[in-house]
Structures are given as C-alpha cells and as structure tokens.
C-alpha cells in the first residue's frame, strides 16, 4: 500500500564540502523546553538570542508567523550568521530557506526589487500532491497472437503477479505495441499507469536472477512486489513559487532554473500563478509552506529596497524574513538620514529585534575547541588558553584563522599536537587587524599615496565613516 509505506526520503549521499566558517553548526542547540543548552549542536553561549530564535523556529514550524521579520543585531563576530545557519539547519530539508547578502542585489543584471522579489518567492514553498493509480507486478507470461496474414488485429494476454495474487489481463493492440516497445518479457517487474497506459520497467525479478549467465550490467534486480496489483501512489512535492514562476515564464523554460539565468519575470505571470495557487489552496489541493529568507548585511540595502520590503511583508504569501546587521546608528543607504542599524524607522517598527552579545572568555574557548575539532586539529590545553587570550584581545575570527595556520606549523615540525610555540609563531607571522592598523599608522609616511597626514577632513567622508562603524 503506497499510503502507508511512504517514509520521508533519506539522503544517503553525504555532502562533500570544504570546512566553512559555519560548517560546525547543526542546529540551534535547544532542549525540548526551548531553553538553550550552553554548548550544543555547535552553538556556544548566546543563550538569550538562541532562545528567542528558537521561539521563532517553533512558530515557523507551526506556520504561524508568515510575513514577520526578525533582525539580528550585534557586533561583528558575535554569531549572527551562525544563529541564522542554525535556524536553517533546524528547519530541516522541507522548509525553503534562502540565504543572501544585502550586497548581492546590486550585482545582478536585473533591477533590485526584482532580485528581492525572486528571493522572496524562492522562500515560499507550495506543497502539492500527485496521485496515480498503477498496476504493479511481475510478468509471469506474455502471449501475443499474431494473425497469420501478418496484418490485422493482434490480441494477447498478460499474466501479472505479486507475492499475494496472480491475474490475467487481456491486451489490445495498443498495449501490445507498448509492451514490445519496452521489450517486456517474462520475469520483468513492470508498472502500468492506469490513466495513461504508460508502461515502465522497474527491473527484473530476483527469482529470475539465474535465468541467463550473460547479462547487461545495467540489469537491475528488484523484489517481486507485495500486496495488491492495483495500487494507488501518492507523491508529495514541495516546489517554491519561484520554480513555478520560471517554469511558466514562457521565454525561459525549466532549463533556466539550472543555469540561474532567469532574467526578469513578468508581473502578470506572477499574478496568474498567485491566483492559481490561491485557487488550489481553496480546493485543498495545495499547502503554502512559508519558508525563511535570510538577508545578511542588511544595511547594504538602499532605501528603495527597504520600502519594497515594507510592502512585500504585507503580502499574504510572505515568508519569514530574517536580517542581520552589525551596524549601529548610521546613514541609510541612498539617503542622507541617520537611523539605527542603517534601516528606516518604519521598517524597524515591524521587526522583532534580537541582540547578540559579545562572547566571554569561557565561551570563546569553547568555540575555539569546537573549531579545532571541526578542522581536525589536535591542540594542547596551554595553546588553547593562549589562543583564547588572543581571541579575546583581537577578535574571534582572527583566533579561528590561527588554528589552521598553527596546525600547519606544527605539522612542519612533525608534531601531532599544536603547542604554545606554534601559536606564538603564527601570531608573529600573521597580523591581526589592530596590529596591522597600528603598523600602518606608524609607517604611514613610507607608503604610497599617503594622504592621511595631509588632509584630516577626509575622515568625514561617508565611506570612511562606514568603515569605522565596522570596527566599533
């Protein structure tokens, strides 16, 4: 019975990927009561923010907070992206999750709002069900009677069986043709789609495995089907609205989905699709799965995008929007106005804002340990303590960079473990950001095009102002 044996698809292929900055994150690390565990699933500390996002997660799972927005605000390196990644992992495969960076929308060959719109629609899933009636069984015998004259009606009989039953079907000319076309013979497992009459071969029965010695490598052996011959198969697909858009925009076709070169999609197409999906929803044929759109570095968006977001969030098929920013009070891009997080006040008003706090020493140590494990680096306790100090004094990211480099140094001297000297060595080899700027300040004169000393009013320029914010 297709209804009951349907189990969630298990992905057998492990993803091969490089070790990224957030590859150690496997979820939000919450317990059943949604309290954040201090260290779990690759997440460390940041308990308040994680708990807050955990609540959002539950609401997303229940489909309750479509069309809301969340802002993760915090200093650089406090785990904003990590939390978003954790959320994506915790949502699982079935909920659409789109991650993009604010600056991405400026570099595409389409207008900014179109890019945003596509990102929005990529984050909304539509769940639909396909139902087919099939006859599935092992071919016991095929009998085809050909008229002696060579022309005229062919008739035949097809005997099919499952483990439970066996039956004979009378065949018409058309079925005989498609059987011969598929080269069906006794011992094959076939399915016949009742609605279309399409025959497909699933493979050969195991019991016939020893019929021939020489067999093509592509011969697949399958078990004789169980249960009834006439089955009903139900397949649930989850597609995103964007996919439906692309399939239906006549100029592109499905291939555009792979090449990514979708161009702009006409708003009429979108409206028609919205209408159709709404109709299906009324008829109980489709479910909307509001997904999550994550926009990193959201301060890079300009005022046009913000006003578009304002509007888009009000649509009844909006996903959950999660944004992250590391800016304080700064200029809104595209205007001369200052605003908290570089976002207009009216948009901020719609958001739930979650702050991430800087990590303390213990947490930093824990994160570094997790990173060491993730990168397969053995490190001794002293070295880890030193690394933690470096992490506290400079930045966590810098300390994480040192792990790999220190590992290489230790391997050069054929050691299995990173010790203090390795850390010291890489610390002297690679400058962190503050030491580097210190160096620049000291030796400014010797660099080319130095203008810092000559005109001091340079620092008022907006570009510089933004850069300063980053390091606050």
């Amino acid at each position, binding site marked *: *019975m297709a*209804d*009951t044996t*349907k189990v*969630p698809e298990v992905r057998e292929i492990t993803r091969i990927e490089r070790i990224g900055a957030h590859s150690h994150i496997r979820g939000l690390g919450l317990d059943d009561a949604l309290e954040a565990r201090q260290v779990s699933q690759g997440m460390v500390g940041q308990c308040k923010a994680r708990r807050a996002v955990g609540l959002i997660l539950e609401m997303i799972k229940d489909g309750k907070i479509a069309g809301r927005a969340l802002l993760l605000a915090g200093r650089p390196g406090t785990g904003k992206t990590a939390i978003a990644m954790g959320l994506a992992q915790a949502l699982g495969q*079935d909920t659409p999750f789109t991650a993009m960076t604010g600056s991405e929308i400026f570099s595409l060959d389409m207008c900014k709002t179109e890019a945003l719109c596509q990102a929005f629609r990529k984050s909304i899933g539509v*769940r*639909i*069900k*396909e*139902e087919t009636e099939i006859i599935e069984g092992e071919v016991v015998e095929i009998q085809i009677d050909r008229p002696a004259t060579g022309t005229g009606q062919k008739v035949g009989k097809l005997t099919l069986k499952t483990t*439970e*039953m066996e*039956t*004979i079907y*009378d065949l018409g000319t058309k079925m005989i043709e498609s059987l011969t076309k598929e080269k069906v013979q006794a011992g094959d497992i076939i399915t016949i789609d009742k*609605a279309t009459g399409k025959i497909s071969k699933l493979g050969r029965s195991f019991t016939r495995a020893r019929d021939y010695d020489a067999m093509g490598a592509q011969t697949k052996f399958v078990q004789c089907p169980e*249960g*009834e*011959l*006439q089955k*009903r198969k*139900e397949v*649930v*697909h*989850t*597609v995103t609205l964007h996919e*439906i858009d692309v*399939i*239906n925009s006549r100029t592109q*076709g*499905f*291939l555009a989905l792979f090449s990514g070169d979708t161009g702009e999609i006409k708003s009429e197409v979108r409206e028609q699709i919205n209408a159709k999906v709404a109709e*299906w929803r009324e*008829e*109980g*044929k*489709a*479910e909307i799965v509001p997904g999550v759109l994550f926009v990193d570095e959201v301060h890079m968006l300009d005022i046009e995008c913000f006003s578009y977001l304002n509007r888009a969030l009000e649509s009844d098929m909006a996903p959950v929007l999660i944004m992250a920013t590391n800016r304080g009070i700064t200029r809104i891009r595209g205007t001369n106005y200052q605003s908290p997080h570089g976002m207009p006040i009216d948009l901020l008003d719609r958001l739930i804002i979650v702050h991430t706090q800087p990590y303390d020493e213990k947490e930093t140590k824990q994160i570094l340990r997790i990173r060491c494990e993730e990168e397969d680096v053995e490190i001794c306790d002293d070295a880890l303590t030193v690394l933690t100090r470096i992490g506290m004094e400079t930045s966590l990211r810098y300390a994480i960079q040192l792990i790999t480099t220190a590992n290489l140094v230790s391997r050069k001297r054929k050691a299995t473990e990173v010790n203090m000297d390795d850390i010291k060595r890489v610390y002297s080899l690679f400058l962190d950001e503050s030491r580097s700027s210190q160096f620049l300040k000291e030796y400014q004169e010797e660099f080319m095009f130095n203008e810092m000393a000559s005109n001091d009013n340079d620092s008022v320029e907006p570009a510089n102002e933004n850069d300063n914010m980053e390091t606050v």
Partner: protein
Amino acid sequence: MPIDDTYLTMEKNMSEVLRHLVEVEEAADDILTDKMQLVNLDRKKNKNREAIRSLKTVPSTSTSTKEQKAWVCFGNMFLKIPLTKAKQVLEEDQEQLDREIDSLRANLKAKVNRLNELEGKEELKGFSLAALDRNEMAAMKQGRPGSS
C-alpha cells in the same frame, strides 16, 4: 513510607506504559488488518474482472445471446444461469468492491495518522492534501527532465 511510594508510582508508570503499548499495538494491528483486507478485495476484484472478460468473449453459438447460459461458480456452488444475468451480477459485485476499496483506503489514512501520533512520530507532510488532477500535474512538470 518512601519505599512504598516509589513502588506505587513505578507500578502506576508501568501500567501507563503498558496501556500505551497496547494502544499502539492495537492501532498497528488495525492497519495491518485493513491492508490485508485491501489485498483480499483486490484479488477478488481481479478474479471478477477475469470472469467478466471471459463471459464477454464467449463464442456465440446458434442460440441467441438471450437464451445462452453459462456455468458460474459462486462461492462453493456451480450455477447455470443466463449469460446476461451472470454479467450483471458480476458487474454489481465489482462496483461494490470498488466502493469498499475506496472507503478502506480513505480510512486507512486516518488510522496511519493516528498510529504516527501514538508513536510520537511527526505527522506526514501533505498527507491530507487533495491530489492535483492530471492536467495540472502535467503543467507543473512541463519541461522537467525525467518527466517526458
């Protein structure tokens, strides 16, 4: 008495667990019975279909089809009844079977859902959706590789 107390709560927990297990087993058993029933009905349906088929292809003899009679086996009894009558009976039977299969299948879903719930599994996604019809599905699949 603390010892007695823990013993009592343990006892209570045990019976609770047992009750739950019984419930799960019952639900699962119910599903299995239904599935078995479905298989039996389908077997019957196929046999009926074969019978109807062979009645249709009975070589027409000199006597007109109205008077023609056929041997039919109902249960354990062989009967000789008019051809048209036999066909009619079989076709009615077939319709009845179809209805039964449909209702069994419909109920089976609710039962599977309940079992999942009892076992604490997540509800299957999109289980309660109505299926798209063929044209709509074709529209969704157009141009996709592997659909042809």
